[in-house]
């Protein structure tokens, strides 16, 4: 017992002050990508050719250069390949969105997630219970969702908790590209959640299929099976990116409505 207490004192308080204070991220962290199509050379496709997940479409006569953060794995190959620095990486971890099309980043930055509507916010804003389902995920998204439960992020202080049964949950948090072999289990889990229920798709796989997009063994993301209320991009998303998205959804971080 003495040893436990002594260690407790030695370990101290480790919870971060987020969202009051900005997170400390490593200098090589690749955050939200930014695009400046005006710099693109006519006909240049260097970025698209190196992209492993077809996440970037270069400027043509009709459209600006656009990055789909829902497909992007943040490998930064496009940034290395671009001769004109038309694509750059910010160190901004915030990129969760409510609508799939909001993840398309052109010359304008992306539209961050707004809070749930008034009725749902009243119901879930102060107590959100989630059931996590991994449907083909590689365990990286799962691990960085799990880390929110550690003393560092202490998700419980925001009233958000992961629960053991869909019957106890207000919604699902889905990772992975949704394999055919998990299709039925995911549907059943969703149906077991009482209404009203929400769905959060975490990671490139759950949004678009990610590295597995187009494989006949997968369904290219959660939207193939269930409606999605929040998309959190990344491969895997940084824990701060996931936390930011969750807090915006429940209205703990304000996103000005446009």
């Amino acid at each position, binding site marked *: 017992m003495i040893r436990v207490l002594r260690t407790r004192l*030695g370990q101290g308080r480790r919870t971060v002050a987020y969202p009051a204070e900005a997170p400390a991220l490593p200098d090589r962290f690749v955050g939200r990508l930014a695009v400046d199509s005006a710099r693109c050379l006519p006909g240049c496709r260097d970025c698209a050719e190196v992209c492993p997940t077809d996440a970037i479409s270069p400027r043509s006569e009709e459209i600006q250069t656009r990055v789909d953060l829902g497909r992007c794995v943040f490998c930064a190959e496009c940034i290395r390949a671009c001769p004109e620095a038309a694509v750059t990486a910010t160190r901004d971890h915030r990129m969760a969105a409510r609508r799939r099309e909001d993840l398309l980043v052109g010359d304008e930055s992306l539209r961050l997630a707004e809070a749930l509507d008034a009725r749902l916010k009243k119901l879930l804003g102060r107590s959100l219970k989630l059931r996590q389902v991994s449907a083909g995920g590689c365990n990286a998204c799962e691990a960085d969702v799990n880390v929110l439960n550690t003393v560092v992020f202490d998700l419980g202080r925001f009233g958000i908790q992961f629960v053991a049964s869909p019957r106890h949950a207000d919604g699902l948090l889905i990772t992975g590209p949704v394999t055919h072999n998990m299709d039925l289990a995911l549907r059943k889990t969703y149906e077991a959640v009482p209404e009203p229920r929400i769905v959060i798709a975490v990671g490139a796989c759950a949004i678009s299929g990610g590295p597995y997009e187009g494989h006949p063994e997968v369904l290219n993301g959660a939207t193939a099976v269930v409606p999605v209320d929040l998309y959190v991009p990344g491969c895997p998303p940084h824990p701060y990116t996931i936390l930011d998205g969750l807090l915006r959804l429940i209205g703990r971080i304000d996103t000005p409505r446009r």
Partner: protein
Amino acid sequence: MSQTIPTITPNGGVLPLDEIPRLPVQDFREFLIRRVRSGGRVVALFAAPYAVPNRIRDHAWGAAPHENDQARLFAVLADGKPPTLLVASSVVGGEYSSITPECPQVHMFEREIAEQFGITPLGHPWLKPVRFQPPCPGREGLSRHESGGKALPAASSFFSVEGEEVHEVAVGPVHAGIIEPGHFRFQCHGETVFHLEIALGFQHRGVERAVIGGPNNRTPLLMETLAGDTTIGHATAYAQAIEALCGCTPSPRARMIRAIALELERIANHVGDLGALANDIGFLPPAAYFGRLRGDFLNLTAALCGNRFGRGLVRPGGVRFDLEPDRVSSMLGAFRLAMEDVHQVGPLLWKSHLVTDRFNGTGVVSREQAVELGLVGLAARACGLERDVRREFASGFYADAQAPCHTWPTGDVFARAHVRWLEIEQSAQFIENHLQRLSDGATPVPLGALAPSSCAISLVEGWRGEICHVAITDTQSRLSRYKIVDPSFHNWTGLALALRGQQISDFPLCNKSFNLSYCGHDL
């Protein structure tokens, strides 16, 4: 047995396909059985498409088979003392006599061959699909026959025990925690587990099939996401295989950075597992501290390459990020602080009666069982077996660094926890020793073309154990077969055996003590 001697290859070696002996199937079978009986171990056993010679056509998974097409079985064995890698092959038709009854450690491999290529190992005692995946096109795999075409692992037939007081418990695929899906079917008598059958495949996303015809832009991503917590391990195994086929050697500096990242990955996972084990016995202080510390080690990997799991660090030819002197000193500072905390928290576990009571004697796998099943890595070392790629088949930077191999004889949860602790210390020492003494060398080196019609074998000791990648190229230097063996593929059966005679309530603790990969198994 014929006079043909199977070919010997080093780890990271490449062999022309023609030089790998094609034994008659009976000799191939005898070769495996005899070698394993005399102390050998099956590293990999798999099938690849094989077109009849003299027909000019590419033969790969995905190409429609010709009626005369056959399959070629490849076996990679670790044999002898010190061990060497032996490779042999055999061309087979639709069936052959199963090797499993006389050599149990190939039981999953033979099921996989039957599932992927529709080749029946006659007399296999438990022939059912491994992942419920679509078979190689044009071939009829096993999955189709199970569960009436609806390939759902949990709906297949299970080994069952009958009797008045025997009952069955089914768990999964969706579990209570934030973990991956798998189905566990227990045959119980009261609280006691008679038998556990583990049905996986829920995570199958077609990686082996998708890399055929490559490599391309996406291949490294598929390798890094084989098992997200083993990003560095699998990416290094892949890089080593491609480098072997290209005949290129990365710089000593790149090999060193890979080794440092691999050891960081090992520490992060081992520390996290010790926390999770504490959590499973309801001992929350170390669970909280180790849970946090795991993140500190992931953040060190992020300091190196920007990503907490090491995505984008390892690529064929070298590494994409260098370590400047400033970065080395800031990483070393953070590393030492984290290790101080590990040393402060460790005694909480090792000096607690609660831990002794719950860990000792729980989930025992005997040394004999471990040998018979061909367990690898941590799980094997916890049964007293000195199995470690870093020592047995040292490649990359490890070829220059003598690594000790920590074992513990008891084969229980305690042994698997304690070996983790010893390895944390060992890896910490490795990082301390090498982070400040980085070799020179440009990173990365340019890659040449892949050798055509060749086979490269690459082993890496990931934090769970031996990762094996075998890359085979066609006449056009494209990948025609890429076999991946995650350590979990060998070790899941070890978990099933550890549960025999245990209380069913000890399952979470036993499961966590192995902490095997679902996605690494399911591919």
